[in-house]
């Protein structure tokens, strides 16, 4: 059980780290200063959550590894983030759609996780759920603006939805580890999260005047099992460069 919880916490940590990394790539290059700030802010929240999760994972593992060991010294095939979050930024519409799909899952997951009988995990969720609520508000509002904005923004949004929707299902498709933890009641039943997630998505898409995308037969998964897209390797080469180049030092 401890091993499974370790794996699950690691999966969450990898997910926040990778998405935070992607958002931080926008820093200094955002479409307007206010949104540059907003994305840096979300990246910072995710990074904070990442650190708490890795620290807890390190405790669960009990092998003396640190948060930095876990983040910087594992190869791509050991990373457990779902495919969605490693997808490149693309244009702002891609970033917004990726964020919306993640936030809708992340917020509802944390909302349930904060009642987990595992106190440390519940504590992290309790702290992060407030931030996640703000993230979901931000990405929902932007999805609406882009959908119900100009012809160009709508076209870009449609393309982003067509590209990214296929990665949504993996978020709530339990791995064997997640299923085992769900049976133990440590992790919420994803099926139980679905109505609230679907209701929110339906509301936002309706406001955005966008029909719900249908990509069921093309749902992509693999990342949570270590089967990633080729994008992750480049991301990690950059993220891990310093720790790889100068092993064992203090910064």
């Amino acid at each position, binding site marked *: 059980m401890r091993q499974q919880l370790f794996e699950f916490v690691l999966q969450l940590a990898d997910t926040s*780290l990778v998405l935070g*990394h992607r958002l*931080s*790539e926008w*820093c*200094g*290059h*955002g*479409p*307007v*200063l*206010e*949104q*540059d*700030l907003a994305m*840096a*802010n979300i*990246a*910072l929240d995710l*990074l*904070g959550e*990442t*650190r708490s999760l*890795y620290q807890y994972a390190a405790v669960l593992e009990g092998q003396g590894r640190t*948060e*930095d060991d876990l*983040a*910087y010294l594992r190869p791509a095939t050991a990373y457990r983030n779902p495919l969605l979050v490693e997808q490149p930024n693309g*244009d*702002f519409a891609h970033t917004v759609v990726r964020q919306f799909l993640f936030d809708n899952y992340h917020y509802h997951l944390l909302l349930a996780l904060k009642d987990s009988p595992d106190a440390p995990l519940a504590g992290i969720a309790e702290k992060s759920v407030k931030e996640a609520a703000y993230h979901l508000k931000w990405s929902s509002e932007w999805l*609406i*603006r*882009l959908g*119900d*904005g*100009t012809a*160009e*923004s709508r076209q*870009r949004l449609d393309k982003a939805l067509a590209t990214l929707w296929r990665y949504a299902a993996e978020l709530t498709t339990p791995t064997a580890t997640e299923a085992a933890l769900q049976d133990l009641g440590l992790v919420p039943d994803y099926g139980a999260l679905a109505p609230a997630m679907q209701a929110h998505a339906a509301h936002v898409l309706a406001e955005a005047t966008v029909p719900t995308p249908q990509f069921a037969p093309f749902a992509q998964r693999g990342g949570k099992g270590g089967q990633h897209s080729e994008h992750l390797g480049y991301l990690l080469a*950059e*993220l891990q*460069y*310093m*720790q790889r180049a*100068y092993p064992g*030092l*203090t*910064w």
Partner: protein
Amino acid sequence: METLEKDLSRDDQFQARIDADVRIEPKDWMPDAYRKTLIRQISQHAHSEIVGMLPEGNWITRAPSLKRKAILLAKVQDEAGHGLYLYSAAETLGASRDQMLADLHSGKAKYSSIFNYPTLSWADMGCVGWLVDGAAILNQVPLCRTSYGPYARAMVRVCKEESFHQRQGFEIMQTLCAGAPVQKEMAQEALNRWWWPTLMMFGPKDSESPNTEQSMKWRIKRFTNDELRQKFVDMMVPQAEFLGLTVPDEKAQWNEARQAYDFGEVDWNEFWSVVKGNGLCNHDRLQARVQAHEEGAWVLEAALAHAAKRAAREAVAA
């Protein structure tokens, strides 16, 4: 003739308020030259914050620990915030953000030349915090008492955060200098690259700085370039020694008689060359800003279009 006398008297009154250290506020009358000088200076300062995000942003994805990554990301985010409230301060003088950005993108408006130097190693994050923010603080602390109210108040907040950033930069340097030999070398190599450019941050020599006198009279400026540069050297040389580093200037020696550090001559050719656009990163920096602006234009348009649609719907519903 009457108008001229009236204007003269307004000018005199204005100067009298300045001399009495009374803050000028947006609705107060002010000479055109004062307004223009301030718009130029504040927008340049705002642009520097925004362009200044790039050299540090360059290391966010490669920061060597999660903690340092979080600190750096927060710092760059603060710079975006500084940019925002400096643009607001300039707007109180009648400048529009669109126009200020257009001037930046066309090359008409300047930003601090220090950001035209590249960040090439992690130690640069230390040097930028320690030296560049250190120089910025020396330039900016007097601006907390500058005569124009909104600018002075913005600078209070900026300076508070900058001094926090400066300490973080120094801490990076300390960690490197207390670390492995390869880390200390990295710190020294970065200091070698950043030392002279930071001395240039105080601007040309007083003898080459024709605007200083008027700016000091208006209390937009309170110390001359050379005074601040001396102050900086006097502060930083001992800090470098404390770190176990050597500033790349053989002439940097304590002068007992002057009770100050002597130091070598800045390479003014390099200074003017970078100001004129020939720094290693001028092209890339401006390009990055222009590209973000152009590629982001549709986002702003969409937001405005949506707001208009929504307003129209609400008007119908009401």
